């Protein structure tokens, strides 16, 4: 309050003092009007120009980055498509090598089957021997005119022999048809074999056709990439986003596994590094040691997959000669197996420690020991041991989603960065525009504070202009009159 009073001209009459101060301030502000307007315009202009400059730079940088991202994306896409096409061709090559090389043999087999069928068909076509020409003999006997016993006997004999021959002929025909039926029956497996062979050929051809279609699709993509087609670029970018999401999902699952794994071995690790040692205020050494074991397992898995050329995070490993790569693969596998065995034994130790602690708790509570279920009670222990052995191998496969995440993250980050820069550029440009307009607003606001002197100024100017105009009018009327 005393500080406030010190500013008053007349501390006893505050209103008067404030009024006088206001008038003085107004006079000062009126006097400083032009320079102040200048300052406002300069500052706002400076801000506006700076923002526009930064915005322009951001847009240019975003464009350059976009071009770089595009080239990286297309290069990666081209590389991956090339690899896929290469694999497809390899697959087609294998099919051709494996299956098509069997085609001559297959063809020969089919020809043999066809020949056999033809032979059988021909055999079917053999006509049985015609019946003896006894009909004409009968006609001759019938033409004998003289009756008697002789012709009758003769005819009877003929009848007998005809009956005999007829029976023989019928039997022959039956036998012949039976044989044909047999031949036709024997043809059935050949037809089936031919049908089967044709089916196999059809299947192989279909696989080949599918592969050819896939290659066509990949070739189309590759062409799109080479032509820097925006559609292909968009597809690749979207694919990167999807890949990243999938990889993160798998990595999250793997992290869950690693967490369980950590829980499994943290307690027994405390037996080695001490349960009461801490690295930081709330980070136990045993927990960190367990984590290191898990990370080492993941690393070994990474090296194993690298040496198997499943992942390609380390070009050095990929470019190694086959012998060295093979050695590295064996070394990684051996380390992984050792670590898995260690983890399995740690799981066993965990179970023992927990049993020991449970026994102590029972002692402390003076409770009777729990009844043992024999084999049933050892199931959790066996489960833990198996889990301890299997989890490291499962963790080894983390390298695949990790590689995927690393590759797609570059694209995704690039896209986000470009979008972010563009967004920031727009915001800055808008802010620059606002700043430019703000100068006028500030100028008007300043003028509001000194509205009274301005009104007086306008009035004085108006008066002056008015008197000048009156004088001019009078002079003009005088001259008119004179004229």
């Amino acid at each position: 309050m005393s500080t406030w009073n010190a500013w008053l001209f007349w501390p006893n009459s505050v209103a008067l003092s404030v009024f006088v101060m206001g008038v003085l301030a107004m006079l000062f502000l009126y006097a400083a009007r032009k320079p102040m307007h200048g300052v406002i315009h300069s500052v706002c202009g400076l801000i506006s120009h700076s923002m526009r400059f930064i915005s322009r730079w951001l847009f240019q940088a975003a464009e350059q980055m976009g071009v770089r991202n595009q080239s990286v994306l297309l290069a990666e896409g081209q590389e991956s498509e090339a690899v896929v096409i290469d694999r497809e061709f390899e697959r087609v090559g294998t099919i051709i090598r494996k299956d098509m090389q069997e085609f001559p043999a297959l063809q020969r087999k089919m020809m043999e089957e066809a020949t056999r069928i033809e032979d059988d068909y021909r055999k079917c076509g053999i006509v049985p021997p015609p019946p003896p020409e006894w009909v004409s003999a009968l006609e001759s006997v019938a033409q004998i005119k003289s009756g008697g016993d002789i012709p009758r006997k003769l005819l009877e004999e003929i009848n007998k022999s005809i009956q005999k021959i007829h029976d023989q002929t019928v039997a022959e025909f039956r036998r012949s048809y039976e044989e044909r039926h047999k031949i036709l029956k024997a043809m059935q497996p050949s037809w089936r074999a031919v049908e089967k062979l044709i089916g196999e050929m059809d299947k192989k051809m279909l696989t080949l056709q599918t592969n050819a279609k896939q290659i066509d699709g990949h070739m189309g993509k590759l062409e799109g990439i080479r032509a820097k087609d925006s559609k292909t670029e968009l597809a690749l970018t979207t694919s990167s986003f999807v890949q990243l999401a999938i990889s993160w999902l798998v990595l999250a699952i793997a992290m869950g596994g690693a967490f369980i794994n950590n829980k499994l071995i943290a307690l027994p690790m405390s037996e080695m590094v001490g349960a009461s040692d801490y690295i930081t205020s709330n980070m136990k050494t045993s927990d960190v040691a367990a984590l290191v074991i898990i990370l080492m397992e993941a690393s070994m898995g990474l090296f194993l997959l690298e040496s198997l050329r499943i992942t390609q995070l380390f070009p050095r490993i990929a470019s190694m000669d086959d012998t060295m790569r093979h050695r590295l693969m064996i070394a990684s596998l051996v380390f992984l197996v050792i670590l898995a065995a260690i983890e399995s034994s740690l799981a066993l130790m965990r179970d023992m420690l927990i049993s020991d602690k449970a026994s102590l708790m029972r002692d402390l509570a003076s409770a009777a020991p729990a009844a043992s279920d024999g084999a049933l009670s050892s199931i959790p222990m066996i489960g833990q041991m198996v889990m301890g052995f299997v989890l490291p191998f499962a963790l080894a496969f983390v390298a695949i989603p990790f590689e995927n995440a690393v590759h797609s993250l570059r694209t995704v980050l690039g896209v986000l960065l470009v979008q972010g820069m563009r967004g920031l550029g727009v915001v800055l440009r808008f802010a620059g525009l606002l700043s430019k307009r703000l100068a006028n607003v500030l100028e008007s606001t300043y003028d509001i504070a000194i509205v009274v002197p301005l009104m007086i100024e306008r009035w004085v100017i108006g008066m002056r202009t008015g008197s000048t105009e009156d004088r001019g009018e009078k002079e003009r009327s005088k001259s008119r009159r004179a004229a």
Partner: protein
Amino acid sequence: MKKYLTLLILSFSVVLATACGDGRMHSHGVYMLVDTSGTYAREMGKASKIINYLLATLNPGDSLAVAKVETRSFTEKDIVAKVTFDKRPSQATSQKRAFKNSIEEFATQVKGSAYTDITGGLIQGAEYLNETKAGIKTIVIFSDMQEELGKGTIRDFPINLDGFRIVALNVTKLGTDNADPRLYLDRLARWEAKVRKAGATEWVVVNDLENNMESILTTR
């Protein structure tokens, strides 16, 4: 590849090196004073339960000592059993079993003392816990908190309990307390004022031993 291997080896070495880090700051030291004077000696069963609870709750690296409150308690001779648990859980479990056995043995042959020197016990407990260099130091007093000093026992001087938690357990009401509860309340207030003046960070009274046992070790 080499770089990666070097990094792995380095990180493993760092872990191994730091594995020998100072864990005492996280360790808990508990010194339990058991009043064996007069009729309170009959409460030994409850004291055993509390000791068992402490044994079940304390972790490897923690320290525990149990001492009796006698006519003059400022002496190591009154410490019935003491242990600093091994860092290895399996060893710690064995130590806990051994500790339990010695307490059981003590409980069978406890003799009542004529006087109750709680202050002497507090000073002895503070000395012991300071030596253990535990991060959290708790003195548990299993007593009715009625101090009775023998002739020639001087305890009316300032004591130092800086950073200590003092937990009074099973503070039973005496016959006179029932007639005038102010005596009981005044007794507790006096002890609280005394330990707080000595620098204790916490003063906790736990009478419900069935449901409130965790307050013994839980810091506020």
